[in-house]
């Protein structure tokens, strides 16, 4: 409009101006490498985790001039970079970005890609690739990254022409963080990075073969509401989808209107505060007793944004066969995948809940809720009271350390865990009292996830306390990232629960393999010395009587801190649903 107006007033001048800009533009071609960074800026990216190397050097060279606009964090391993990007994405709901070079740089991302795909985490990973004329020649550091990552990415694409960069990057961000989020990998050959292009960017809002956001089908909502309104013993299963859809508020209102008890999956933790009167605990293998038992006694399951993972359902043939089921899910391939349902609702969790809210009756289920509380009492007597029994001396119970950290952070820290016994106990004994506090590797169960993901979470939400709960096994898989905590002053608080065992595997060997402890005992290093070597403060607490003060010291410390907790060597996580058992065959001891 403005140009038009000017044109009317002084056409000649405008013409010459325009000619000038055109010639300027013609000269102002930029490199593919710089274009990548401009794309990131257009998508609002201000933080990248990465590791340079030969095939991505042009991008890193361009980054040298962009470091004021985009922070780059040099992790110590590409796996650290991608897990950090995951932690960042999970904490902020933004897309995590990481860079790696070709060959081994790229292969080091694979674990994180698989992890992000399983846990619906939006990532855009950019890898360098050898010159396009060398593709397929077994060139130095050449790996068929697209071929290798096809099954562990939501989408991947190789760019060999710089002109493709803006459009492909725009697509990458759109795909990563729409519908069910997931990781996208863009592999860019070196010649595409050094080649020149006219940069024009348009954000992608539509891809003709991709329909990420199904419209809520009112017939499905009506069918679901009918089941809800008729139910006598309904149970809500809240999943990761509630966090991803940022549906906490509407979910809480829906729950309070319907009066239906809420059990959460592991990634559904903190979708409703633990102290909410309708929250009845966690589902699954090491979940709470009540929700597992009652799954097989309810008359209606309302699953929201979860995928009936085998760790949740136990034996599928005996899973809630008595109940009708509603499944609210954004990914059509998840509906009727593991569990056949009467009333599927294909939609974003938030949209579905809002639509459903209008059609459900206000109700309460006092006696049904009492049944859960009776189960809670039983679990408290048989499990929780023992786990939390206040030891006053000697090695520390893992649950006790987590509960103490929970109390001192008032249940409001972001809890990032590694994988194993400590993870299950962090899920069980931290009192989640705010939304979106749980970041863990659930689907993939990736040991080594904890520390780098905690770094990403802390950098994404620096105002929040970030508690990284690790075991001694997983911690040693990525502890080199302590260097990142130190170099960038990332104030994560690491609660290292050390029992000198790969505890979960040991527990299984004890329970299911006749105590044949096959390669699960570790001769551990001096973790505090290692941390200090990296410039991270820390100390060891070996006596239960010092636990409280130690956790306070950790939390009070200004900067990253490692609290090394000497734990009881052999502890088992209960309850447990053993492999092949039904949810109501959950064992308390």
């Amino acid at each position: 409009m403005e140009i038009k107006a000017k044109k009317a007033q002084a056409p000649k001048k405008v013409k010459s101006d325009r000619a000038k800009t055109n010639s300027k533009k013609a000269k102002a071609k930029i490199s593919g490498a710089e274009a990548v960074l401009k794309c990131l800026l257009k998508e609002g990216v201000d933080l990248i985790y990465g590791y340079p190397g030969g095939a991505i050097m042009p991008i890193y060279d361009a980054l040298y001039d962009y470091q004021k606009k985009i922070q780059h964090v040099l992790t110590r391993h590409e796996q650290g970079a991608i897990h950090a990007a995951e932690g960042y994405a999970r904490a902020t709901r933004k897309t995590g970005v990481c860079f790696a070079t070709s060959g081994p740089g790229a292969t080091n991302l694979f674990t994180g890609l698989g992890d992000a795909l399983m846990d619906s985490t939006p990532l855009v990973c950019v890898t360098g690739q050898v010159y396009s004329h060398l593709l397929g020649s077994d060139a130095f550091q050449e790996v068929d990254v697209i071929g290798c990552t096809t099954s562990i990415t939501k989408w991947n694409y190789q760019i060999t022409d710089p002109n493709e960069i803006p459009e492909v990057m725009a697509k990458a961000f759109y795909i990563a963080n729409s519908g069910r989020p997931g990781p996208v990998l863009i592999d860019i050959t070196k010649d595409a990075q050094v080649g020149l292009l006219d940069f024009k960017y348009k954000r992608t809002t539509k891809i003709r073969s991709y329909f990420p956001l199904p419209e809520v089908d009112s017939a499905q909502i009506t069918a679901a509401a009918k089941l809800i309104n008729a139910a006598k013993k309904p149970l809500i299963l809240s999943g990761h989808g509630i966090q991803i859809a940022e549906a906490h508020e509407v979910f809480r209102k829906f729950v309070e209107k319907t009066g239906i008890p809420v059990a959460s999956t592991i990634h559904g933790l903190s979708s409703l505060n633990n102290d909410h009167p309708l929250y009845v605990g966690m589902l699954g293998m090491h979940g709470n007793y009540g929700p597992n038992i009652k799954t097989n006694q309810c008359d209606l399951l309302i699953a929201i944004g979860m995928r009936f993972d085998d760790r949740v359902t136990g034996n599928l043939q005996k899973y809630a066969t008595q109940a009708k089921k509603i499944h609210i899910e954004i990914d059509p391939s998840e509906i009727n995948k593991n569990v056949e349902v009467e009333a599927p609702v294909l939609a974003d969790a938030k949209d579905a809940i809002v639509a459903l809210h209008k059609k459900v009756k206000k109700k309460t289920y006092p006696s049904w809720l009492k049944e859960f509380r009776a189960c809670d009492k039983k679990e408290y007597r048989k499990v929780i009271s023992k786990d939390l029994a206040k030891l006053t001396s000697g090695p520390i119970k893992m649950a006790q350390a987590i509960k103490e950290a929970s109390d001192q952070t008032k249940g409001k820290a972001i809890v990032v865990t590694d994988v194993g016994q400590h993870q299950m106990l962090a899920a069980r004994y931290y009192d989640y009292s705010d939304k979106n506090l749980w970041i863990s590797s659930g689907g993939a169960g990736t040991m080594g996830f904890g520390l780098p993901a905690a770094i990403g979470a802390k950098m994404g939400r620096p105002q929040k306390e970030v508690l990284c709960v690790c075991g001694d096994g997983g911690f040693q898989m990525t502890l080199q990232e302590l260097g990142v905590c130190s170099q960038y002053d990332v104030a994560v608080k690491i609660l290292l629960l050390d029992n000198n065992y790969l505890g979960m595997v040991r527990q299984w060997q004890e329970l299911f393999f006749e105590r044949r402890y096959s390669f699960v005992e570790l001769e551990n290093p001096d973790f505090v010395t290692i941390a200090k070597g990296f410039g991270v403060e820390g100390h060891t607490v070996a006596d239960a009587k010092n636990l409280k003060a130690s956790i306070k010291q950790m939390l009070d410390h200004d900067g990253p801190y490692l609290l090394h907790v000497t734990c009881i060597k052999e502890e088992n996580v209960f309850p447990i649903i053993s492999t092949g058992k039904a949810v109501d065959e959950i064992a308390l001891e």
Partner: protein
Amino acid sequence: MENEYTITIFSENKTGVLSRVIGIITRRKINMDSISASKSAIKGIHKIIIVIKVTETQVRKICAQIDKQIDVFKAFYYDNSDLVYQEIALYKVPTEAFYQGDTVENLVRKYDAKILRIEKKYIVIEKTGHQEETEALLEELEQVGIYEFIRSGRVAIVKPMERLNTYLKKRNIA
């Protein structure tokens, strides 16, 4: 119960789509009986046809997972009764075989096969039909001697009017 299903997939014609689709099938350790790909009647949209023997539950889940690939428009599965389908087979047999009586000639007539090429040493025969038919001819030719045999993937047209068109219309694509 396992059954033969034909999956038809409409996708963008892009590098990597086929390997994504195949990966979804092979990760379940299902061997594909046949695969073919070509352009479809809709401009710019590619069609992949895969035949597998699985249960209906399996094929439904596989289709759903193929469907959600970014570059895939839609995947459908069909029972053989929903399809008109063909495969093409080529047989290379020794020319000598034709000298010995009228066996081969009779076979060509019986199976409604075609002679594509005659060389001094060999003759190439073409037969289109369902797998059972091309297989039966193969068995008979094996009796007289055969040098080479190859069969194409299945090509198929569905009997119900193509569901894709309705689907694309709904999505405002075509």
